[in-house]
């Protein structure tokens, strides 16, 4: 195997070749490190540590030679810069954590390492995972003198989506066969859709939140981003598992092999089509690609069932009350005392807090902290926060109603394809409105994924969103994998890479 082709292999195939010793983990790591350096203009990577990467690769080769290697031995992966890592800087895209070095690895990072995965580096994300475009970045990417938005490999004048935009861009550009991501309101699914890759957010509580820098704790969930559903299934199997002592909301659900049911046939599968996902806000090009995917499912023996998720539109205000409320509490730890940025000049402790936070946080983070603090304050708590939590239950109940008529739900991930860099940068509300189709499943804590479904305006990728009931990740991956047996959208790659 010529090493120039390594980046074209699926993760599953790469893992097989590593097991069969057709290629070594060190050779693989070196190949991808070279690609990362050659594509720095995308701004996807924010930190590398070649020594640490190659040490992990050598350990994988030793385990492979000894015959006691894990399922992902030698497989390179990039981690979203929201997971803390001992061997790499962790910034969460914020000046607040510039130069921060964690004393420990996040649970997701150590679980993947235990399976043999080799960390290539850290990839860019919106500051504290707050954003839908990966434009809210306050730390420079590798090879860039100043902070810059991540570029979409399909069209470098466009955003890759967010907040896991660096993860999506890196996978789409074949700089890594896979990357970790996190999804609070769509941050895995939307960038996966915009960059033409596959990503899954599992059921809330499946993957440990230990060492994942908290944004909105009742919504945050980690998941894999890769090119195919099969690759995601392999990664998700390693990422998920109970962590009761370190994550208070970790689910007591056993580790699963999510590849188990990939090849199940879809005869008789009932796919729910929520009419609210196909209204006038949906761009015609996105609709055409989604409709074509649904037709393909019918050919595979599935039945389309009209359903209703009547509170879809309400999920926007509900999410943008609950998430900032939780963020305002979570981000209070950034006060310049124990770690991270501290202002240089101050008069007293309060002044130090104020200046540290005013300097350390970017505008979007400040907006959400202020909104969150406001909706939690006396006199507004009932009208905003509690009201949002009540509607959150109604939204979750709507899904349970829907799942009485269908096995999975399908629709668009986002109303449009990826927009131009800067197009919505000064209009936060426009960004919030574009999250409409991913927020409902987030609020309900349901597993959801994005599967490449074709191309829209500007030849930009379109993702099909699949939503399953609680703990039905295996079913979702099966449904996605079957589509990928009859379509090749997940195999297409951007030009110039």
């Amino acid at each position, binding site marked *: 195997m010529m090493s120039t082709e390594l980046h074209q292999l699926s993760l599953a195939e790469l893992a097989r070749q590593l097991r069969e010793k057709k290629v070594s983990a060190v050779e693989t790591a070196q190949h991808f490190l070279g690609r990362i350096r050659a594509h720095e203009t995308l701004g996807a990577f924010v930190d590398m540590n070649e020594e640490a990467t190659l040490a992990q690769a050598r350990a994988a080769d030793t385990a492979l030679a000894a015959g006691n290697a894990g399922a992902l031995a030698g497989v390179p992966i990039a981690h979203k810069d929201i997971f803390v890592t001992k061997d790499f800087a962790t910034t969460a895209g914020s000046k607040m954590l510039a*130069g*921060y*070095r*964690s*004393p420990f690895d996040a649970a997701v990072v150590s679980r993947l390492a235990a399976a043999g995965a080799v960390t290539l580096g850290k990839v860019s994300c919106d500051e504290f995972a707050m954003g839908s475009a990966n434009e809210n970045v306050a730390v420079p990417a590798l090879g860039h003198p100043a902070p810059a938005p991540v570029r979409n490999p399909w069209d470098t004048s466009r955003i890759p989506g967010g907040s896991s935009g660096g993860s999506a861009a890196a996978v789409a550009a074949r700089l890594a066969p896979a990357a970790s991501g996190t999804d609070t309101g769509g941050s895995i699914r939307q960038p996966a859709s915009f960059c033409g890759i596959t990503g899954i957010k599992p*059921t*809330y509580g499946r993957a440990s939140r230990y060492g994942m820098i908290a944004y909105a704790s*009742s*919504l945050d969930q980690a998941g894999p981003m890769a090119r195919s559903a099969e690759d995601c299934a392999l990664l998700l199997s390693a990422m998920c598992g109970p962590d*009761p*002592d370190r994550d*208070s*909301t970790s*689910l007591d659900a056993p580790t699963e092999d999510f590849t188990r049911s990939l090849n199940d046939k879809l005869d008789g599968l009932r796919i729910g089509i929520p009419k609210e996902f196909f209204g006038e806000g949906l761009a015609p090009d996105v609709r055409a690609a989604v409709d074509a995917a649904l037709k393909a499912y019918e050919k595979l023996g599935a039945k389309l069932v009209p359903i209703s998720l009547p509170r879809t*539109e*309400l999920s*926007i*205000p509900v999410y*943008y*009350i609950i998430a900032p409320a939780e963020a305002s509490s979570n981000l209070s730890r950034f006060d*310049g*005392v*124990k*770690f*991270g*940025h*501290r202002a240089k000049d*101050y*008069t*007293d*402790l309060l*002044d*130090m807090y104020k200046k540290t936070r005013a300097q350390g946080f970017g*505008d979007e983070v*400040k*907006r959400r902290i202020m*909104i969150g603090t406001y909706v939690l304050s006396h006199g507004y708590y009932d*009208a*905003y926060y*509690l*009201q949002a*939590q*009540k*509607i*959150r*239950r*109604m939204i*979750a*109940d709507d*899904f*349970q109603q829907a799942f009485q008529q269908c096995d999975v739900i399908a629709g668009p991930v986002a109303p449009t394809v990826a927009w131009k860099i800067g197009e919505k940068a000064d*209009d*936060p*509300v426009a960004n*919030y*409105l574009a999250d409409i189709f991913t927020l409902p499943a987030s*609020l*309900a*804590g349901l597993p959801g994924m994005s599967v490449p479904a074709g191309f829209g305006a500007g030849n930009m990728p379109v993702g099909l969103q699949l939503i399953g009931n*609680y703990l039905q990740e295996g079913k979702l991956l099966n449904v996605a994998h079957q589509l990928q047996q009859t379509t090749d959208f997940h195999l297409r790659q951007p030009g110039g890479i």
Partner: protein
Amino acid sequence: MLTQINGFFDIVEQMRAVDTSGIEPLAHPLATVAEVALRLRDDVVSEPNNREANQKSAPAVERGLFLVPKVIE
């Protein structure tokens, strides 16, 4: 920033009109389908002393203590 935050509260208005009488707030999403109780772990020391590593990224440390401006005169 004020204009942007006011713009945000415009989209929140539609939420306030929803009749939610008799609906319990949902704090943990899986409480939709199952009883979710927050776990308590045993009150025992589980973390080893790792002070040096934990203070490595601190802005100001002296003799193992975090330094802050004087609070009490």
